C-alpha cells in the first residue's frame, strides 16, 4: 500500500479534477432543475467555444475578446437550441429531451472534427495567464487556474443557490421544475424563464469549456465526452441538489486520483465516476416505492 507521501500529490490533482467535474455537473443540474432537460451537449458547446477562441487568438485577436466570444458562443448556441427545440419537446419525457440534446452534441462534434481537423498531428492548446503563477503543495505546484476552477465551482453553487432561492426568476425556475403546467397557469412567463435558464446554462458551458480546455485538453473528443463523467456527480445528487452535485464531483475526482498510486487498481480508476454513481443510486433508491408515472414519454 502506498504511503501518505505517495498519496499527497494525488490529493492536489484530485481536487483539480473534482473542480473540473463540478463545473460541468453543476451547470447540467441547473438547467435540469429549470427545464427538465438533461443537457448532454454541455461539453460539446464548451469545446466548440474553446476552439473558436483558439482560432481567434491564433488570428491575432486579443485574448480577452476570444474568451468573451467563447462564453458568448456557449450562451448563444444553448439559447438557440432551447428556444427552437424546447417548446416542442416541453411535454415529452426526460429521456426524449435528453436524447434530443445528444443530437446537438453530434452535430457540434461533427462540425468540430470538420473545422478543426486532427490531420497531420495538429496539437492545439489554450493557456491562460493564471497558468504561470501558483504555489507549492508538497512537491506539486498548484497553479491559479486550478484554484479558479475550484472557486468557480464553489461560487457557482453559492450564487445559483442564492439566485434560485431569493430572486423572482429563480423562484419561477424552481416552480417550473416542480410542475411546468401549473406554473404556466399561474401567469409565469414560462418561455422567458426557460430562455433565461438556457442562456445561463450556455454561458456556464462556455466558461467551463474555456477552463476545461486549459485544465484538461483542447480536444473536441475529450471535452465533449467529459460530460459523461461529470454526469455521474449529477446522478449521485439525483439531479436535485446543486450543492450535493458539487460535493459529489469533488469526491469523484479525489477518489479517481487517489487510486492512481495503488498498482492493482490504477488501471481501473477511469471507472470511478460510474461505479460511484451506480452504487449511490442503488443505496439511495433502496427505500423508494416504485410508482408508475402518468407523464409518459
Amino acid at each position, binding site marked *: 500500500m502506498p504511503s501518505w507521501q505517495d498519496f499527497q500529490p494525488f490529493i492536489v490533482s484530485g481536487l483539480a479534477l473534482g473542480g473540473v467535474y463540478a463545473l460541468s455537473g453543476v451547470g447540467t443540474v441547473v438547467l435540469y432543475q429549470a427545464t427538465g432537460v438533461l443537457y448532454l451537449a454541455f461539453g460539446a458547446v464548451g469545446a466548440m467555444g474553446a476552439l473558436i477562441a483558439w482560432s481567434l487568438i491564433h488570428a491575432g485577436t486579443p485574448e480577452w475578446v476570444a474568451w468573451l466570444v467563447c462564453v458568448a458562443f456557449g450562451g448563444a448556441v444553448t439559447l*438557440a437550441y432551447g*428556444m427552437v427545440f424546447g417548446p416542442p419537446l416541453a411535454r415529452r419525457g426526460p429521456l426524449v429531451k435528453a436524447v434530443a440534446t445528444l443530437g446537438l452534441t453530434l452535430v457540434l462534434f461533427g462540425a468540430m472534427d470538420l473545422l478543426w481537423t486532427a*490531420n497531420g*498531428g495538429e496539437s492545439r492548446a489554450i493557456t491562460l495567464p493564471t497558468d504561470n503563477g501558483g504555489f507549492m503543495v508538497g512537491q506539486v505546484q498548484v497553479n491559479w487556474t486550478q484554484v479558479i476552477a475550484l472557486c468557480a465551482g464553489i461560487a457557482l453553487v453559492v450564487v445559483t443557490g442564492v439566485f434560485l432561492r431569493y430572486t423572482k426568476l429563480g423562484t419561477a425556475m424552481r416552480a417550473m421544475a416542480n410542475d411546468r403546467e401549473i406554473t404556466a397557469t399561474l401567469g409565469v412567463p414560462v418561455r422567458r424563464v426557460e430562455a433565461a435558464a438556457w442562456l445561463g446554462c450556455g454561458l456556464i458551458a462556455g466558461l467551463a469549456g474555456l477552463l476545461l480546455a486549459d485544465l484538461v*485538453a483542447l480536444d473536441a473528443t475529450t471535452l465533449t465526452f467529459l460530460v459523461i463523467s461529470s454526469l455521474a456527480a449529477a446522478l449521485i445528487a439525483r439531479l436535485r441538489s446543486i450543492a450535493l452535485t458539487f460535493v459529489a464531483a469533488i469526491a469523484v475526482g479525489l477518489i479517481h486520483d487517489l487510486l492512481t498510486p495503488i498498482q492493482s487498481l490504477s*488501471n481501473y*480508476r477511469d471507472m470511478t465516476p460510474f461505479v460511484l454513481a451506480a452504487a449511490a443510486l442503488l443505496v439511495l433508491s433502496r427505500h423508494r416505492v416504485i410508482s408508475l408515472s402518468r407523464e409518459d414519454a
Partner: protein
Amino acid sequence: MRLYKRAPDARATIALAAVIGLAALAGCSSNTSSASKPTSSAAASSTGTASTGATAQTSQCGTKPGVKAAGTPIPLGGIVTNQPGTSFTDIANMANAYFTCVNDNGGINGHPIKYYIESEQTNPGQIAAEAKQLVQTDHVVGIVGNTSIIECSIDHSYWQKLGFYIVDSGIAPECWSTPNSAAVNMGPRYSSDGAVQYALSQHVSKIVFDQSNVPGTGYIAAGPAALAGAAHVAVTQLTENVPISDANSVAIKEVDDAGPNGAVVLNFTPPEALVILQAAQKLGLENRVKLWGCSTPCNTDFLAQALGPKWNHKLFVNAELTPAFTSSPSMSLYKAILAQYGKAVSGGIGSFSQFGFAEAEIVVHALETIKGAYTVASVNGAIKAVSNFDTGQLCQPWTYGSYPMHIPNNEDYTVTPDNGHMVLAQGCTQISSVDPQIAAYRKVAG
C-alpha cells in the same frame, strides 16, 4: 396570446440567426485554421512566388517535364483510416499529389496513374470490402499508401493470395511481420525502441514507458522492454485510456515512478502527448526526471509550438523520417509538390505528407522499370524488386525484397523542440538488434 403568436416567429428568427452565425463561424474558422499552419503556408509562399519557378521544381517528378500523360491509366489503390480523432487521409492525399505531378510531367512512359483512395472507420467488414472493391471493381494493379489501424491485420492474407506487394505506412503488427507488406515508417514499436534507445544512451537509471491503452500494447511494449532489459535498466510499462481526461495524475504517476535519474518515454498521438507534457509543466514536474522521450508522432512543429520554450532540449523525439528542415533535392521536390498539388493535404509539411511522398516515390520508381504491360504481376514484381532506393526521406536506402517480414526503415534520427521548432539532437542511428524482431529482419535481409 401575444406570446404564443410571437413564439413561432421568434423561433424561426433564432434558427435562421443560428444557421447564419454558424456559417460565419465556419468561414472564420477555416481562415484562422489556415493561418494556424505557418509551416505549410511558408512552404507555399517560398516555392510559389513565381508559378514558373514552382513548375520548374515539380517537373523533376516526371521523365518528360511539362508533357501531360494521356495514355491508358495505371490504376493504383490505397486504404486509409478516416474517423473522428484519427485521420490518415493526408498520407494518401500526398501520394495522390505526387502521382498528379507525375501525370503532368510525362506519366509512366506516357501512362497516367489513376489513384483510388478508400477511407474506412476501423470496421473489419468495411476494410475487407474495400480491398475487394479496389481489386474487383477498380481493377487496381498495385496498392500503395495504406495507413490504417487494422487494415494489415484484416487484408494481409488477401493481398498475399492475389500477389500484391503493398507499400504502406504501418500501424498493426502485420504491416511488418508479413511477406506482402513493406512500410516506409517504423511504426509504434520500433519508433518507441528509438526513443527508449536514446534515453538509454543518456545513462538513465529507469525507464517509464507509457502508451495508449489500445490493441497491440503488448507487442509495442516488448521492444522497449527488451532494450531496457539488455541495458540492465529497470522499466515500468504503463497504459492510459484515451482520450486522457486527467493528465495531472498521469504526469505525477510517471514522474514519481521514473525518479530524478529516470526517463519518461511516451507513445501517444500528439494531442495526448501534449496534454501529459503540459500537465507536467503546470505541476512543475518537467525537471523532476532526467529526460522525456516520445515516439515519432510527437515529431511535429505544432507540438513544439504548443509546448513552448520551457521544453527546449528537454523532450527527445524519435524521428523516423529525415527532418523536413533538411536541405536536399528530395526535400525541395517534396515541398514543391506539396505546395503545387497538395491542397488536400491539410497537415502541410510533416510526417504524414512525408510518408505519402516516399511511398509514391517508391512505387513510381518501380513502375518506371516495367517494360511491357502494367498488370498485377508486372507491377507487384517491380515493387518487390525495389532495392536500395534512396527516397531522400529516410536515413537509409529502402528495399522491399523477398523476405517473410519487412522492416526496411530501421534507422532513425532524434529531434528536440527548440523555440517552437523541432531541431536535430542525434543523427541517423540504427535501432538495436536487441529487439528480437529487428534481429530477425536483419538476419533475413542481410
